[in-house]
């Protein structure tokens, strides 16, 4: 493989017999070196181009469609704008008062039919009516491939949801409908009743799904739990319907006129397909069905909520409505002033347990009452049948109390329209004054013989011993002094570490060791010299002086002290770098030492001056680089 030719004409040679002239021709001639093949290829390309041009030259169109022309208020329709054979420069957005039209997406579709290729761009809008009535989506205009295209206006009818008429139901024309019933039209305010809404499906409905309430208006009712019952079939008019019952707990929350409904819902039902021909017998088994979205509306029901009677209202009535029974227990009954007594009140029966609360007992003024706990256990799916159990801790406040007073609970029974009061008799108590009785069982006491731990019934008593009292202060770890104190062992360790390093350093350096030893020797020697000078002992003075000179010079010159003589001053290379005054001083000191052996005895003052001269010379020597 090689490149040939100049920069403006590259010839790319793959093999000696295949030459490439230009880029397009070169590639084609490589794959189809035969000229006839090349001609055929050109014809094919020409055909493809004709087909493509044919497709693109297809006349563009712009259409607007609605997926339905009638819908219920609350539902939505889909508006589709389809541009076939081209793309619009801008997509028009329809604006119609009373209709909320929101773009919900774009899609593009390509098709090739009988040699003609076409592309379709579809823009969809969600159309949600804000009121009932007749609407017209006006003609929409768009520029497609330079053409000005206009759609046809579209009509949309929006109807208010309404229950089907009895005639329509009886005629069997309704595929599905809702039926709302109340067990009674007169109820008491606060009373809970179970209403029923029935979803009726015509017998030809093969299946249904996506059932969803879209509106559950209830003026004066509080809607509680819902529960679906068992399906049943019944004849309505000319057709058999499947009934799907849904029970709803409804509580009247005000007195006066109440209205319930119309409930609205949406569902998808599956009906036998009308477009699958063939034998009706086999169609029954093999008909796949046709899904249809249905909007359902129930009728509106009126009811009346009666206020609770004002006569014979018990003093302790606190809003409980239903039919209840009462069970009260209390314990322990032998206790000390201030000890807790657990009062357990169980209210059982049928009614709105949410509204049942523990009544205030006015005669319990000798007791301190703690907030009660409540636990509801219901046995039905609406929470209306069951029991509510209260536990309340009360503690006697003085030793004069002898009983837990009678407990009463009042409720209104809507079945007979009367108030009822249930009373539990007083419970005798033995109350001891604080400190005069045995302490109650406590959590902290451990009895080795008991197999199960004792359940505490009260707190442990107060402590008599005050114990350690301190001034309130911040924790130690937020004290700077505490943190500073922690640096002391660190500093001690660092000091020990430095000492250790210095000792190691000295042990491994004999010259340094000798330097320090000689320095110490000189310091001691100078003192001796001063002493000998004062005592006028010239022999000892000069002997010491000579020895100190030997030691200091030996250390500086790194040679034995005994090998040091006056000649060393002239001969040793290190001393040649010393200042002349120092060397002169050394010579003079050596000469003085020599002279002392022969010269007469000198005075103290002269010895002191020699000692001073020695100190000066030694100082200069110690500064000399060894």
């Amino acid at each position, binding site marked *: 493989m090689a490149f040939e030719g100049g920069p403006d004409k590259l010839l790319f040679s793959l093999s000696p017999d295949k030459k490439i002239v230009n880029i397009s021709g070169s590639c084609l001639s490589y794959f189809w070196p035969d000229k006839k093949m090349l001609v055929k290829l050109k014809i094919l390309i020409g055909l493809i181009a004709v087909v493509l041009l044919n497709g693109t030259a297809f006349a563009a169109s712009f259409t607007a469609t609605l997926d339905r022309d009638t819908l219920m208020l609350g539902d939505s329709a889909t508006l589709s704008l389809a541009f076939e054979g081209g793309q619009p420069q801008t997509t028009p957005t329809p604006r119609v008062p009373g209709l909320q039209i929101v773009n919900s997406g774009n899609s593009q579709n390509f098709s090739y039919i009988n040699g003609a290729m076409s592309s379709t761009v579809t823009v969809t809008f969600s159309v949600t009516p804000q009121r009932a009535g007749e609407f017209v989506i006006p003609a929409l205009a768009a520029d497609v491939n330079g053409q000005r295209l206009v759609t046809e206006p579209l009509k949309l009818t929006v109807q208010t949801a309404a229950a089907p008429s009895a005639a329509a139901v009886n005629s069997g024309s309704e595929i599905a409908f809702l039926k709302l019933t109340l067990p009674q039209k007169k109820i008491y305010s606060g009373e809970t009743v179970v209403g029923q809404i029935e979803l009726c499906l015509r017998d030809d409905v093969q299946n249904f799904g996506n059932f969803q309430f879209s509106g559950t208006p209830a003026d004066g009712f509080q809607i509680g739990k819902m529960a679906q019952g068992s399906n049943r079939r019944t004849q309505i008019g000319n057709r058999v319907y499947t009934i799907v019952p849904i029970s709803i707990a409804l509580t009247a929350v005000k007195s006066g006129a109440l209205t319930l409904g119309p409930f609205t819902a949406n569902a998808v039902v599956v009906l036998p397909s009308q477009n699958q021909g063939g034998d009706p017998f086999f169609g029954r088994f093999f008909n796949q069905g046709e899904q249809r979205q249905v909007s359902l509306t129930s009728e509106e029901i009126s009811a009346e909520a009666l206020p609770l009677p004002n006569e014979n209202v018990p003093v302790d009535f606190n809003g409980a409505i239903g039919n209840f029974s009462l069970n009260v227990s209390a314990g322990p009954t032998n206790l000390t*002033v*201030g000890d807790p007594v657990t009062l357990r009140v169980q209210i059982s029966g049928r009614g709105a347990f949410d509204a049942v609360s523990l009544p205030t007992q006015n005669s319990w003024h000798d007791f*301190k*009452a*703690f*907030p009660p*706990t409540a636990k509801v256990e219901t046995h039905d799916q609406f929470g209306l049948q069951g029991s509510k159990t209260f536990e309340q*801790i009360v*503690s006697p*406040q*003085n*030793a004069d109390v002898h009983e837990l007073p009678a407990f009463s609970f009042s409720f209104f029974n809507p079945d007979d329209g009367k108030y009822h009061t249930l009373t539990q008799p007083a419970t005798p108590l033995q109350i001891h*004054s*604080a*400190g005069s009785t045995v302490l109650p069982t*406590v*959590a*902290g006491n451990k009895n080795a013989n008991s197999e199960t731990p004792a359940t*505490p019934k*009260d*707190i*442990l*008593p*107060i*402590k*008599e*011993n*005050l*114990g*350690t*009292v*301190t*001034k*309130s202060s911040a*924790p*130690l*770890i937020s004290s700077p*002094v*505490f943190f*500073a*104190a*922690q640096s*002391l*062992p*660190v500093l*001690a*360790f660092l*000091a*020990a*570490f430095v*000492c*250790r390093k210095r000792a190691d350093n000295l042990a491994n350096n004999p010259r340094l060791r000798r330097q320090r030893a000689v320095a110490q020797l000189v310091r001691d020697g100078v003192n001796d010299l001063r002493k000998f000078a004062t005592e006028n002992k010239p022999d000892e003075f000069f002997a010491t002086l000579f020895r100190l000179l030997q030691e200091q010079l030996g250390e500086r010159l790194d040679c034995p002290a005994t090998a040091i003589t006056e000649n060393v001053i002239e001969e040793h290379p290190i001393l040649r770098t010393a200042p002349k005054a120092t060397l002169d001083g050394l010579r003079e000191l050596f000469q003085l030492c020599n002279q002392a052996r022969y010269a007469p005895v000198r005075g103290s003052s002269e010895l002191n001056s020699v000692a001073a001269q020695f100190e000066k010379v030694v100082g200069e020597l110690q500064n000399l680089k060894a």
Partner: protein
Amino acid sequence: MKTFPAIFIALAFAGNIFAADVAADFTAANQLYAKGKFSDAAASYEKILQTGAVSPTLFFNFGNAEFKSGHLGKAIAAYRHAEQLAPRDAELRANLAFVRNQVQGVTQRESFWQNWVGTLTLNEGAVLTAILFWLTLALFSARQIRPTLVPKLKSATWIFITLTLFSGTVLGLQAANHFSAACAVVTTDNATARSGPFDDAQSAFTARDGAELSVLDWRDGWVQVMDANGKSGWLSAKLVEVLPGA
């Protein structure tokens, strides 16, 4: 080196400084309690605490008096104060558990590790860690001063290093818990937590007397709290007593 003994001397004898002053008031409060005058006893204990004197016994008795007066939240707050001073007091733990059982609704509880690190007070943890730290560094110093002791001190050094690191970690957890995991105890019957730190904000949830809540934030007399169910809201600081972590 004189600082260290001084700290210990201060710790050992500081407890007796105020004992003489408060002993008489304490006895009087105990007598009120014995007579069943729990509210008066609670007020007396609180008066002593307002002088700045603290003692686990004082908080314990104060908690008892508040409980007997029907104030669960204040009792729990007092017991938790006492717990920070005497975390291993069995009677205190029993009373705290009993009162907590009386609280209605959801409430926060300490996690296992919070209970575990709470076995020591923060000061006990700090002193223990300091002692171990000093001993460890004393061993290090001895190894420097007397290198011949290094083989003999090797095991002891490692043991003390391990103990110091462990104790330091526990202290770190204690400090994190103390300074960051603050808790609010509701001290009124029904405290309505709001969605914002102002009175007109929408109600978020209601906490009952004695409910313990995690503190998330503070702002202008309002405390942002979160209950055990993860609901958060703002409570007026007047409705709660805020405690540091255990």
